[in-house]
Protein backbone atom coordinates (compact mmCIF):
# COMPACT_ATOMS: atom_id res chain seq x y z
CA UNK A 1 0.00 0.00 0.00
CA UNK A 2 1.50 3.34 -1.02
CA UNK A 3 1.69 6.22 1.45
CA UNK A 4 -0.39 9.28 0.65
CA UNK A 5 1.88 12.30 0.37
CA UNK A 6 1.12 15.97 0.01
CA UNK A 7 3.13 18.94 -1.13
CA UNK A 8 3.94 21.65 1.35
CA UNK A 9 4.60 25.33 0.85
CA UNK A 10 7.31 26.76 3.08
CA UNK A 11 8.06 30.45 3.29
CA UNK A 12 11.62 31.73 3.66
CA UNK A 13 10.40 35.16 4.53
CA UNK A 14 11.81 38.61 4.06
CA UNK A 15 13.39 38.40 7.49
CA UNK A 16 15.80 35.50 7.40
CA UNK A 17 19.40 35.23 8.52
CA UNK A 18 20.59 33.65 5.30
CA UNK A 19 18.82 35.48 2.53
CA UNK A 20 21.36 38.30 2.11
CA UNK A 21 18.74 40.99 2.36
CA UNK A 22 14.99 41.26 2.01
CA UNK A 23 14.08 38.46 -0.33
CA UNK A 24 11.10 36.19 0.01
CA UNK A 25 11.38 32.65 -1.31
CA UNK A 26 8.32 30.49 -1.57
CA UNK A 27 9.44 26.86 -1.58
CA UNK A 28 7.14 24.11 -2.76
CA UNK A 29 8.36 20.95 -1.13
CA UNK A 30 7.73 17.25 -1.41
CA UNK A 31 9.09 16.20 1.97
CA UNK A 32 12.55 17.66 1.89
CA UNK A 33 13.01 17.78 -1.89
CA UNK A 34 12.26 21.03 -3.68
CA UNK A 35 9.80 21.03 -6.54
CA UNK A 36 9.71 24.73 -7.27
CA UNK A 37 11.06 28.00 -5.89
CA UNK A 38 9.22 31.26 -6.53
CA UNK A 39 11.19 34.35 -5.54
CA UNK A 40 9.25 37.49 -4.56
CA UNK A 41 11.21 40.71 -4.79
CA UNK A 42 10.36 44.38 -4.45
CA UNK A 43 10.81 44.75 -0.70
CA UNK A 44 13.56 47.31 -1.26
CA UNK A 45 12.17 49.16 -4.29
CA UNK A 46 13.39 52.69 -3.73
CA UNK A 47 12.24 54.39 -6.93
CA UNK A 48 15.73 55.07 -8.25
CA UNK A 49 14.56 55.63 -11.81
CA UNK A 50 11.94 58.17 -10.83
CA UNK A 51 14.52 60.13 -8.84
CA UNK A 52 16.85 60.20 -11.84
CA UNK A 53 14.24 61.98 -13.92
CA UNK A 54 13.95 64.72 -11.31
CA UNK A 55 17.65 65.31 -10.63
CA UNK A 56 20.32 66.82 -12.84
CA UNK A 57 23.00 64.57 -14.28
CA UNK A 58 25.66 65.05 -11.55
CA UNK A 59 23.03 64.76 -8.81
CA UNK A 60 22.27 61.19 -9.87
CA UNK A 61 25.65 59.89 -8.69
CA UNK A 62 24.85 59.54 -4.94
CA UNK A 63 21.74 57.58 -5.92
CA UNK A 64 23.69 55.17 -8.08
CA UNK A 65 25.91 54.42 -5.06
CA UNK A 66 23.01 53.13 -3.09
CA UNK A 67 21.86 50.56 -5.60
CA UNK A 68 24.58 47.96 -5.20
CA UNK A 69 25.86 49.12 -1.86
CA UNK A 70 28.69 46.58 -1.69
CA UNK A 71 30.35 47.84 -4.88
CA UNK A 72 29.53 51.55 -4.88
CA UNK A 73 32.67 52.67 -6.72
CA UNK A 74 31.75 50.46 -9.64
CA UNK A 75 28.22 51.82 -9.96
CA UNK A 76 29.60 55.34 -10.16
CA UNK A 77 32.27 54.17 -12.60
CA UNK A 78 29.63 52.70 -14.93
CA UNK A 79 27.53 55.86 -14.86
CA UNK A 80 30.57 58.08 -15.48
CA UNK A 81 31.69 55.95 -18.44
CA UNK A 82 28.18 56.07 -19.93
CA UNK A 83 27.90 59.85 -19.55
CA UNK A 84 31.39 60.46 -20.92
CA UNK A 85 30.51 58.47 -24.03
CA UNK A 86 27.28 60.43 -24.41
CA UNK A 87 29.02 63.78 -24.00
CA UNK A 88 32.15 62.69 -25.92
CA UNK A 89 34.65 64.09 -23.40
CA UNK A 90 38.16 62.78 -22.75
CA UNK A 91 39.35 62.40 -19.19
CA UNK A 92 43.01 62.78 -18.13
CA UNK A 93 44.97 59.59 -17.83
CA UNK A 94 45.59 59.99 -14.12
CA UNK A 95 41.84 59.93 -13.58
CA UNK A 96 41.54 56.65 -15.49
CA UNK A 97 44.31 55.01 -13.47
CA UNK A 98 42.84 56.09 -10.15
CA UNK A 99 39.38 54.89 -11.23
CA UNK A 100 40.82 51.47 -12.10
CA UNK A 101 42.63 51.23 -8.75
CA UNK A 102 39.51 52.18 -6.81
CA UNK A 103 37.38 49.81 -8.87
CA UNK A 104 39.65 46.84 -8.32
CA UNK A 105 40.01 47.52 -4.60
CA UNK A 106 36.23 47.69 -4.45
CA UNK A 107 36.04 44.35 -6.26
CA UNK A 108 38.25 42.77 -3.60
CA UNK A 109 36.16 44.29 -0.81
CA UNK A 110 32.91 43.08 -2.40
CA UNK A 111 34.20 39.54 -2.89
CA UNK A 112 35.37 39.47 0.71
CA UNK A 113 31.85 40.18 1.91
CA UNK A 114 30.42 37.58 -0.47
CA UNK A 115 32.80 34.87 0.67
CA UNK A 116 32.59 35.76 4.35
CA UNK A 117 28.80 35.65 4.43
CA UNK A 118 28.77 32.49 2.31
CA UNK A 119 30.91 30.78 4.92
CA UNK A 120 28.65 32.09 7.69
CA UNK A 121 25.57 30.70 5.90
CA UNK A 122 27.14 27.27 5.56
CA UNK A 123 28.03 27.36 9.24
CA UNK A 124 31.66 28.47 9.33
CA UNK A 125 31.74 31.66 11.39
CA UNK A 126 35.49 32.32 11.53
CA UNK A 127 36.09 33.21 7.84
CA UNK A 128 33.43 35.94 8.26
CA UNK A 129 35.60 37.66 10.88
CA UNK A 130 38.80 37.21 8.85
CA UNK A 131 37.20 38.66 5.70
CA UNK A 132 35.84 41.67 7.53
CA UNK A 133 39.21 42.32 9.11
CA UNK A 134 40.79 42.62 5.66
CA UNK A 135 37.87 44.66 4.40
CA UNK A 136 38.44 47.24 7.14
CA UNK A 137 41.92 47.89 5.68
CA UNK A 138 40.39 48.64 2.26
CA UNK A 139 37.66 50.82 3.75
CA UNK A 140 40.37 52.78 5.57
CA UNK A 141 42.04 53.44 2.20
CA UNK A 142 38.75 54.73 0.78
CA UNK A 143 38.13 56.82 3.84
CA UNK A 144 41.38 58.76 3.65
CA UNK A 145 40.69 59.51 -0.01
CA UNK A 146 37.12 60.68 -0.01
CA UNK A 147 35.87 60.65 3.54
CA UNK A 148 33.29 57.88 3.43
CA UNK A 149 33.43 54.20 4.21
CA UNK A 150 30.60 52.77 2.20
CA UNK A 151 28.87 55.23 -0.14
CA UNK A 152 31.41 57.52 -1.68
CA UNK A 153 30.16 60.03 -4.31
CA UNK A 154 33.77 60.06 -5.52
CA UNK A 155 33.79 59.35 -9.25
CA UNK A 156 32.19 62.32 -11.00
CA UNK A 157 31.38 62.85 -14.67
CA UNK A 158 34.65 63.95 -16.22
CA UNK A 159 36.93 63.35 -13.26
CA UNK A 160 37.06 62.73 -9.54
CA UNK A 161 36.06 64.75 -6.53
CA UNK A 162 39.41 64.60 -4.70
CA UNK A 163 42.94 63.65 -5.62
CA UNK A 164 44.78 60.84 -3.84
CA UNK A 165 45.86 61.35 -0.26
CA UNK A 166 49.69 61.61 0.12
CA UNK A 167 49.78 58.40 2.19
CA UNK A 168 47.59 56.40 -0.17
CA UNK A 169 50.29 54.72 -2.27
CA UNK A 170 52.38 53.68 0.72
CA UNK A 171 49.36 52.23 2.57
CA UNK A 172 48.17 50.39 -0.53
CA UNK A 173 51.54 48.75 -1.02
CA UNK A 174 51.49 47.63 2.60
CA UNK A 175 48.00 46.25 2.17
CA UNK A 176 49.02 44.24 -0.91
CA UNK A 177 51.98 42.80 0.96
CA UNK A 178 49.77 41.74 3.88
CA UNK A 179 46.85 40.44 1.86
CA UNK A 180 48.52 37.67 -0.13
CA UNK A 181 49.27 35.46 2.93
CA UNK A 182 45.71 36.18 4.16
CA UNK A 183 44.31 34.80 0.92
CA UNK A 184 46.28 31.64 1.43
CA UNK A 185 44.93 31.45 4.99
CA UNK A 186 41.36 31.80 3.69
CA UNK A 187 41.95 29.00 1.23
CA UNK A 188 43.29 26.69 3.90
CA UNK A 189 40.42 27.54 6.21
CA UNK A 190 37.42 27.45 3.91
CA UNK A 191 38.01 26.61 0.25
CA UNK A 192 39.70 23.25 0.72
CA UNK A 193 37.85 22.34 3.87
CA UNK A 194 36.27 18.92 3.46
CA UNK A 195 32.94 19.91 5.02
CA UNK A 196 32.64 22.94 2.73
CA UNK A 197 33.42 20.83 -0.32
CA UNK A 198 30.83 18.24 0.65
CA UNK A 199 28.17 20.92 0.89
CA UNK A 200 28.96 22.81 -2.26
CA UNK A 201 30.52 20.49 -4.86
CA UNK A 202 28.09 19.06 -7.45
CA UNK A 203 25.27 21.18 -6.00
CA UNK A 204 23.28 23.62 -8.15
CA UNK A 205 24.97 23.08 -11.49
CA UNK A 206 24.31 25.84 -14.06
CA UNK A 207 24.67 24.55 -17.64
CA UNK A 208 26.30 26.94 -20.08
CA UNK A 209 23.43 27.07 -22.62
CA UNK A 210 20.91 28.01 -19.94
CA UNK A 211 23.22 30.68 -18.59
CA UNK A 212 23.63 32.44 -21.92
CA UNK A 213 19.94 32.19 -22.77
CA UNK A 214 18.99 33.87 -19.50
CA UNK A 215 21.72 36.50 -19.86
CA UNK A 216 23.75 35.56 -16.79
CA UNK A 217 27.16 37.23 -16.62
CA UNK A 218 30.10 37.76 -14.33
CA UNK A 219 31.53 35.11 -11.99
CA UNK A 220 28.36 33.01 -12.33
CA UNK A 221 28.93 32.65 -16.09
CA UNK A 222 32.66 32.16 -15.67
CA UNK A 223 32.00 29.42 -13.12
CA UNK A 224 30.27 27.45 -15.88
CA UNK A 225 33.44 27.46 -17.94
CA UNK A 226 32.89 30.34 -20.39
CA UNK A 227 35.69 32.89 -20.63
CA UNK A 228 33.70 36.14 -20.88
CA UNK A 229 34.83 39.29 -19.10
CA UNK A 230 33.81 42.78 -20.20
CA UNK A 231 37.19 44.17 -19.18
CA UNK A 232 38.72 42.18 -22.02
CA UNK A 233 35.82 41.58 -24.41
CA UNK A 234 34.27 45.07 -24.52
CA UNK A 235 37.01 47.22 -22.99
CA UNK A 236 36.49 50.55 -21.30
CA UNK A 237 38.88 52.88 -19.45
CA UNK A 238 42.53 51.74 -19.40
CA UNK A 239 42.05 48.04 -18.63
CA UNK A 240 43.83 47.05 -21.84
CA UNK A 241 47.13 48.36 -20.47
CA UNK A 242 47.41 45.80 -17.68
CA UNK A 243 48.37 42.16 -17.69
CA UNK A 244 45.89 39.91 -15.89
CA UNK A 245 44.12 36.61 -16.41
CA UNK A 246 40.43 35.64 -16.42
CA UNK A 247 39.77 32.67 -14.12
CA UNK A 248 37.06 30.19 -15.10
CA UNK A 249 35.50 27.21 -13.40
CA UNK A 250 37.04 23.86 -14.27
CA UNK A 251 35.01 21.36 -12.31
CA UNK A 252 37.92 20.66 -10.00
CA UNK A 253 35.88 19.34 -7.09
CA UNK A 254 32.76 18.20 -8.91
CA UNK A 255 30.93 19.16 -12.08
CA UNK A 256 31.69 22.31 -14.04
CA UNK A 257 29.32 25.05 -12.96
CA UNK A 258 28.55 23.92 -9.42
CA UNK A 259 28.59 26.13 -6.33
CA UNK A 260 32.22 25.41 -5.50
CA UNK A 261 33.31 26.56 -8.96
CA UNK A 262 31.44 29.86 -8.65
CA UNK A 263 32.93 30.38 -5.20
CA UNK A 264 36.47 29.60 -6.27
CA UNK A 265 36.28 31.86 -9.34
CA UNK A 266 35.72 34.72 -6.89
CA UNK A 267 38.73 33.72 -4.80
CA UNK A 268 40.94 33.61 -7.90
CA UNK A 269 39.53 36.94 -9.11
CA UNK A 270 40.72 38.60 -5.91
CA UNK A 271 44.27 37.52 -6.76
CA UNK A 272 43.96 38.93 -10.28
CA UNK A 273 42.60 42.24 -8.99
CA UNK A 274 45.58 42.46 -6.67
CA UNK A 275 47.87 42.13 -9.71
CA UNK A 276 46.05 44.96 -11.50
CA UNK A 277 46.32 47.25 -8.46
CA UNK A 278 50.04 46.51 -8.16
CA UNK A 279 50.70 47.38 -11.78
CA UNK A 280 48.55 50.50 -11.68
CA UNK A 281 50.11 51.84 -8.47
CA UNK A 282 53.59 51.62 -9.99
CA UNK A 283 52.71 53.40 -13.22
CA UNK A 284 50.33 56.19 -12.19
CA UNK A 285 50.94 59.30 -14.33
CA UNK A 286 50.74 62.83 -12.94
CA UNK A 287 48.00 65.25 -13.74
CA UNK A 288 44.99 67.14 -12.49
CA UNK A 289 41.91 65.16 -11.62
CA UNK A 290 39.34 67.94 -11.77
CA UNK A 291 40.32 69.68 -14.98
CA UNK A 292 37.92 67.94 -17.35
CA UNK A 293 34.76 68.24 -15.25
CA UNK A 294 32.26 70.31 -17.25
CA UNK A 295 30.45 73.16 -15.55
CA UNK A 296 26.99 72.43 -16.91
CA UNK A 297 26.07 69.06 -18.31
CA UNK A 298 23.64 69.30 -21.17
CA UNK A 299 24.12 66.37 -23.51
CA UNK A 300 22.77 66.28 -27.08
CA UNK A 301 19.58 64.37 -27.77
CA UNK A 302 20.12 60.67 -28.13
CA UNK A 303 20.49 57.47 -26.19
CA UNK A 304 23.30 55.13 -25.20
CA UNK A 305 23.68 51.74 -23.56
CA UNK A 306 27.01 51.10 -21.82
CA UNK A 307 28.07 48.21 -19.67
CA UNK A 308 30.86 47.59 -17.18
CA UNK A 309 32.00 44.55 -15.25
CA UNK A 310 30.55 44.83 -11.75
CA UNK A 311 31.82 42.32 -9.16
CA UNK A 312 28.48 40.59 -9.73
CA UNK A 313 28.31 40.65 -13.50
CA UNK A 314 27.37 42.98 -16.32
CA UNK A 315 26.01 46.28 -15.06
CA UNK A 316 24.34 48.22 -17.86
CA UNK A 317 23.20 51.83 -17.99
CA UNK A 318 20.67 52.88 -20.62
CA UNK A 319 20.44 56.68 -20.67
CA UNK A 320 18.07 58.66 -22.89
CA UNK A 321 18.63 62.38 -23.08
CA UNK A 322 16.22 64.93 -24.49
CA UNK A 323 18.60 67.87 -24.56
CA UNK A 324 17.72 69.33 -21.14
CA UNK A 325 19.51 69.31 -17.80
CA UNK A 326 17.64 66.27 -16.47
CA UNK A 327 17.75 62.80 -18.00
CA UNK A 328 14.58 61.61 -19.72
CA UNK A 329 15.12 58.00 -18.77
CA UNK A 330 17.83 56.11 -16.91
CA UNK A 331 17.44 52.35 -16.86
CA UNK A 332 19.85 50.20 -14.95
CA UNK A 333 20.32 46.61 -15.99
CA UNK A 334 21.35 44.94 -12.77
CA UNK A 335 23.23 41.64 -12.90
CA UNK A 336 21.57 40.24 -9.78
CA UNK A 337 18.10 40.79 -11.31
CA UNK A 338 18.97 38.42 -14.10
CA UNK A 339 20.60 35.91 -11.78
CA UNK A 340 17.52 35.73 -9.60
CA UNK A 341 15.51 34.49 -12.58
CA UNK A 342 17.75 31.53 -13.12
CA UNK A 343 17.68 30.67 -9.43
CA UNK A 344 14.54 28.56 -9.59
CA UNK A 345 16.10 26.39 -12.30
CA UNK A 346 19.18 25.84 -10.17
CA UNK A 347 17.26 24.66 -7.12
CA UNK A 348 14.96 22.05 -8.60
CA UNK A 349 15.57 18.63 -7.13
CA UNK A 350 17.79 19.68 -4.24
CA UNK A 351 16.98 19.85 -0.56
CA UNK A 352 16.09 22.81 1.63
CA UNK A 353 19.57 23.15 3.08
CA UNK A 354 20.99 23.32 -0.44
CA UNK A 355 18.87 26.40 -1.20
CA UNK A 356 21.02 28.33 1.26
CA UNK A 357 24.21 27.03 -0.34
CA UNK A 358 23.04 27.92 -3.86
CA UNK A 359 21.80 31.37 -2.82
CA UNK A 360 25.14 32.19 -1.28
CA UNK A 361 27.06 31.07 -4.32
CA UNK A 362 25.21 33.32 -6.77
CA UNK A 363 25.94 36.38 -4.62
CA UNK A 364 22.99 38.71 -5.01
CA UNK A 365 22.47 42.15 -3.55
CA UNK A 366 18.86 43.18 -3.08
CA UNK A 367 19.51 46.87 -3.52
CA UNK A 368 20.48 46.15 -7.10
CA UNK A 369 17.56 43.85 -7.87
CA UNK A 370 14.90 46.21 -6.60
CA UNK A 371 16.65 49.48 -7.38
Amino acid at each position, binding site marked *: MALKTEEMVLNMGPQHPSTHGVLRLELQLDGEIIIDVVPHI*GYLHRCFE*KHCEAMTYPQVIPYTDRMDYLASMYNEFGYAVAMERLLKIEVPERVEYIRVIMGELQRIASHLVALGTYGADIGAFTPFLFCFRDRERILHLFEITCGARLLYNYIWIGGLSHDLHPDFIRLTKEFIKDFRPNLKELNDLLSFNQIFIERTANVGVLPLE*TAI*NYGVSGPNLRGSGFKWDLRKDDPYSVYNKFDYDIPIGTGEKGKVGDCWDRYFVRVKEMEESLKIVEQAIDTIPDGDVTSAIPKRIKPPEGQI*YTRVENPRGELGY*FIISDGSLNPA*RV*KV*RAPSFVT*MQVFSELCKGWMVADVVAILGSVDIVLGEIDR
Partner: protein
Amino acid sequence: MKTAEEIFNKLKEKFGSSIIELKTDKPLEPFILVNRLEVDKICLFLRDERDLLFDSLMNLSGVDDANGEKIKDETGLETINGGTLSVYYHLESTNLRHKLTLKTSTEREKPEVVTVTEIWKGANWHEREAYDMYGVVFLNHPDLRRILMPYDWEFGYPLRKDYKNPEFYQGMKVPY
Protein backbone atom coordinates in the same frame (compact mmCIF):
# COMPACT_ATOMS: atom_id res chain seq x y z
CA MET B 1 30.91 41.31 -37.06
CA LYS B 2 28.13 43.10 -38.86
CA THR B 3 27.15 46.74 -38.77
CA ALA B 4 23.63 48.00 -38.20
CA GLU B 5 23.10 48.80 -41.90
CA GLU B 6 24.01 45.28 -43.03
CA ILE B 7 21.67 43.73 -40.44
CA PHE B 8 18.93 46.17 -41.44
CA ASN B 9 19.24 45.20 -45.10
CA LYS B 10 19.16 41.53 -44.25
CA LEU B 11 16.05 41.96 -42.11
CA LYS B 12 14.35 44.13 -44.73
CA GLU B 13 14.69 41.54 -47.44
CA LYS B 14 13.25 38.82 -45.21
CA PHE B 15 10.47 40.63 -43.37
CA GLY B 16 9.65 43.60 -45.55
CA SER B 17 6.84 45.61 -44.06
CA SER B 18 7.40 44.68 -40.40
CA ILE B 19 10.75 46.43 -40.38
CA ILE B 20 9.93 50.07 -40.45
CA GLU B 21 13.18 52.00 -40.60
CA LEU B 22 16.75 52.37 -39.42
CA LYS B 23 17.27 55.56 -37.50
CA THR B 24 20.80 56.93 -37.45
CA ASP B 25 20.07 60.63 -37.37
CA LYS B 26 20.40 61.09 -33.62
CA PRO B 27 24.04 60.90 -32.47
CA LEU B 28 25.44 57.69 -31.00
CA GLU B 29 23.51 54.47 -31.17
CA PRO B 30 21.57 53.62 -34.33
CA PHE B 31 18.41 51.59 -33.76
CA ILE B 32 15.93 49.69 -35.91
CA LEU B 33 12.24 50.45 -35.53
CA VAL B 34 10.06 47.34 -35.83
CA ASN B 35 6.37 46.53 -35.75
CA ARG B 36 5.13 45.71 -32.27
CA LEU B 37 3.18 42.58 -33.22
CA GLU B 38 5.97 40.96 -35.24
CA VAL B 39 8.78 41.28 -32.72
CA ASP B 40 8.87 37.60 -31.82
CA LYS B 41 9.29 36.39 -35.40
CA ILE B 42 12.04 38.93 -36.03
CA CYS B 43 13.87 38.00 -32.85
CA LEU B 44 13.65 34.28 -33.62
CA PHE B 45 15.28 34.97 -36.97
CA LEU B 46 17.94 37.12 -35.30
CA ARG B 47 18.75 34.40 -32.84
CA ASP B 48 18.93 31.44 -35.17
CA GLU B 49 20.35 32.86 -38.41
CA ARG B 50 23.84 31.54 -39.00
CA ASP B 51 25.72 34.77 -39.46
CA LEU B 52 23.74 36.85 -36.94
CA LEU B 53 23.46 34.51 -33.89
CA PHE B 54 22.13 36.99 -31.33
CA ASP B 55 22.05 34.56 -28.43
CA SER B 56 21.88 37.00 -25.53
CA LEU B 57 19.34 39.68 -24.64
CA MET B 58 21.28 42.26 -22.69
CA ASN B 59 18.46 44.58 -21.75
CA LEU B 60 14.76 45.24 -22.32
CA SER B 61 13.38 48.53 -21.09
CA GLY B 62 10.14 50.43 -21.30
CA VAL B 63 10.24 54.15 -22.01
CA ASP B 64 7.58 56.85 -21.76
CA ASP B 65 8.04 59.05 -24.80
CA ALA B 66 5.77 61.76 -23.38
CA ASN B 67 4.95 62.98 -26.86
CA GLY B 68 1.19 63.27 -26.45
CA GLU B 69 -0.68 66.45 -25.61
CA LYS B 70 -0.46 67.62 -22.06
CA ILE B 71 -3.77 68.58 -20.47
CA LYS B 72 -4.02 70.39 -17.16
CA ASP B 73 -7.24 69.68 -15.30
CA GLU B 74 -8.82 71.77 -12.56
CA THR B 75 -6.60 70.59 -9.69
CA GLY B 76 -3.44 71.53 -11.59
CA LEU B 77 -2.63 67.91 -12.30
CA GLU B 78 -1.10 67.33 -15.71
CA THR B 79 -2.15 64.28 -17.69
CA ILE B 80 -0.93 63.20 -21.10
CA ASN B 81 -3.39 62.11 -23.78
CA GLY B 82 -2.33 60.19 -26.82
CA GLY B 83 1.33 59.68 -27.59
CA THR B 84 3.31 56.49 -27.35
CA LEU B 85 5.13 54.19 -24.99
CA SER B 86 8.19 52.38 -26.37
CA VAL B 87 10.13 49.26 -25.60
CA TYR B 88 13.84 49.04 -26.42
CA TYR B 89 15.68 45.75 -26.90
CA HIS B 90 19.48 45.52 -26.69
CA LEU B 91 20.81 42.32 -28.23
CA GLU B 92 24.27 40.86 -28.34
CA SER B 93 26.08 37.91 -29.87
CA THR B 94 28.73 36.25 -27.72
CA ASN B 95 30.13 34.32 -30.71
CA LEU B 96 30.31 36.99 -33.38
CA ARG B 97 30.79 39.99 -31.10
CA HIS B 98 28.21 42.38 -32.52
CA LYS B 99 25.37 44.31 -30.91
CA LEU B 100 22.00 45.62 -32.04
CA THR B 101 19.27 47.89 -30.73
CA LEU B 102 15.59 47.41 -31.61
CA LYS B 103 12.69 49.66 -30.76
CA THR B 104 8.94 49.20 -30.90
CA SER B 105 6.30 51.80 -30.15
CA THR B 106 2.77 51.32 -28.98
CA GLU B 107 -0.09 53.67 -28.17
CA ARG B 108 -0.48 55.00 -24.67
CA GLU B 109 -4.15 54.19 -24.08
CA LYS B 110 -3.93 50.47 -24.79
CA PRO B 111 -0.30 49.40 -24.98
CA GLU B 112 0.32 45.89 -26.30
CA VAL B 113 3.54 44.24 -27.51
CA VAL B 114 4.27 40.60 -28.29
CA THR B 115 6.50 38.83 -25.80
CA VAL B 116 9.93 37.38 -26.57
CA THR B 117 10.00 35.04 -23.57
CA GLU B 118 10.12 31.87 -25.66
CA ILE B 119 13.21 33.09 -27.44
CA TRP B 120 15.28 34.38 -24.53
CA LYS B 121 14.04 33.14 -21.19
CA GLY B 122 15.71 36.06 -19.46
CA ALA B 123 13.12 38.43 -20.91
CA ASN B 124 10.48 37.15 -18.48
CA TRP B 125 11.23 39.41 -15.53
CA HIS B 126 12.27 42.37 -17.70
CA GLU B 127 8.83 42.35 -19.32
CA ARG B 128 7.12 42.02 -15.96
CA GLU B 129 8.97 45.10 -14.83
CA ALA B 130 7.97 47.03 -17.95
CA TYR B 131 4.36 46.06 -17.23
CA ASP B 132 4.66 47.07 -13.58
CA MET B 133 6.21 50.44 -14.26
CA TYR B 134 4.46 51.49 -17.50
CA GLY B 135 1.46 49.24 -18.01
CA VAL B 136 2.67 47.70 -21.28
CA VAL B 137 0.81 44.41 -21.73
CA PHE B 138 2.92 41.66 -23.30
CA LEU B 139 0.75 39.25 -25.28
CA ASN B 140 1.33 35.50 -24.62
CA HIS B 141 3.48 36.18 -21.56
CA PRO B 142 3.39 33.14 -19.21
CA ASP B 143 2.95 35.08 -15.97
CA LEU B 144 2.26 38.80 -16.31
CA ARG B 145 1.85 40.40 -12.91
CA ARG B 146 3.51 43.10 -10.86
CA ILE B 147 7.02 42.41 -9.71
CA LEU B 148 8.42 45.38 -7.78
CA MET B 149 5.32 47.16 -6.48
CA PRO B 150 2.95 45.38 -4.06
CA TYR B 151 0.57 42.98 -5.77
CA ASP B 152 -2.47 45.04 -4.76
CA TRP B 153 -1.16 48.46 -5.88
CA GLU B 154 -4.06 49.93 -7.78
CA PHE B 155 -2.98 53.54 -8.16
CA GLY B 156 -1.50 53.31 -11.61
CA TYR B 157 1.87 52.78 -13.22
CA PRO B 158 4.60 54.66 -11.37
CA LEU B 159 7.17 55.57 -14.00
CA ARG B 160 4.74 57.26 -16.38
CA LYS B 161 5.31 60.98 -16.53
CA ASP B 162 1.79 61.83 -15.37
CA TYR B 163 1.72 59.52 -12.36
CA LYS B 164 0.28 60.91 -9.13
CA ASN B 165 0.83 59.53 -5.64
CA PRO B 166 -2.10 58.34 -3.54
CA GLU B 167 -2.63 59.87 -0.10
CA PHE B 168 -2.75 56.69 1.98
CA TYR B 169 -1.84 53.08 1.33
CA GLN B 170 -3.15 50.53 3.86
CA GLY B 171 -3.14 53.08 6.64
CA MET B 172 0.33 54.50 5.96
CA LYS B 173 0.75 58.07 4.74
CA VAL B 174 2.47 58.21 1.37
CA PRO B 175 3.78 61.79 0.90
CA TYR B 176 6.42 63.27 3.22
